[in-house]
């Protein structure tokens, strides 16, 4: 597993009330090359992030399986119901085994 040289950006509240549903926004810089695109007479090699995995307190919260129709610099907004102070882990995986990750904590009380 290689480390991708990109810094994902996460927008998530630092604190929440118990029971609140919070909005989480993620953005990662990536060309999402499909392997179908020509540039300067040659085909740009396929280079795709194929998965975003989000865990909350160690449990899978949300998975996005990304295909050709997902834009470059994948952007996702989704939600989580907060019941206690929670730790989040965000992991992006590309088709060559590269990964990028980020973490965040939302505090209750």
């Amino acid at each position, binding site marked *: 597993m290689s480390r991708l040289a990109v810094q994902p950006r996460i927008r998530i509240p630092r604190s929440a009330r118990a029971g609140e549903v919070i909005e989480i926004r993620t953005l990662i810089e990536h060309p999402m090359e499909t392997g179908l*695109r020509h540039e300067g007479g040659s085909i740009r090699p396929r280079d795709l992030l194929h998965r975003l995995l989000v865990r909350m307190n160690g449990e899978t919260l949300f998975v996005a399986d990304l295909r050709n129709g997902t834009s470059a610099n994948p952007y996702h907004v989704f*939600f989580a119901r907060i019941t206690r102070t929670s730790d989040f882990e965000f992991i992006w995986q590309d088709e060559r085994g590269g990964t990028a990750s980020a973490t965040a904590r939302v505090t209750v009380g």
Partner: protein
Amino acid sequence: MLAWPPPLAGPAAADDMGLIAAIRAEIGDALPVDGPITARLPAIAENGGQVPLTVAVDSPMTPADHVVAIHVFATRNPTPGIASFRLTPAMGKAEVQTRIRLAEDQAIVVLAVLSNGTVWRAGAEARVVQGGCLS
């Protein structure tokens, strides 16, 4: 809105076969029915490479009754797959926003798989000024 099932005859039949295969790969033989899904695209997308999409499904998102997956397909891209989202009750809300590529004017197909196995369907359409660079 795409006819269901997508037509098998006519000039776009080859593309439709790819779309049907992609849908079957995700939901098997389940028969989608119209359901309370809101799928929002801009009416006119200036840049087909970055088209904002919001999908919201009316679901209580409880362990007993929740959306387990949302699948999004293009009908007129070189390949039909856009994304598949796996949801859990801990999300509290069955809504996902992302940005997608549309090569030309087209409809997208959105399917929501529920925890009881029901599959809901919805569609959205956008006109595309500058096609997204998939090929």
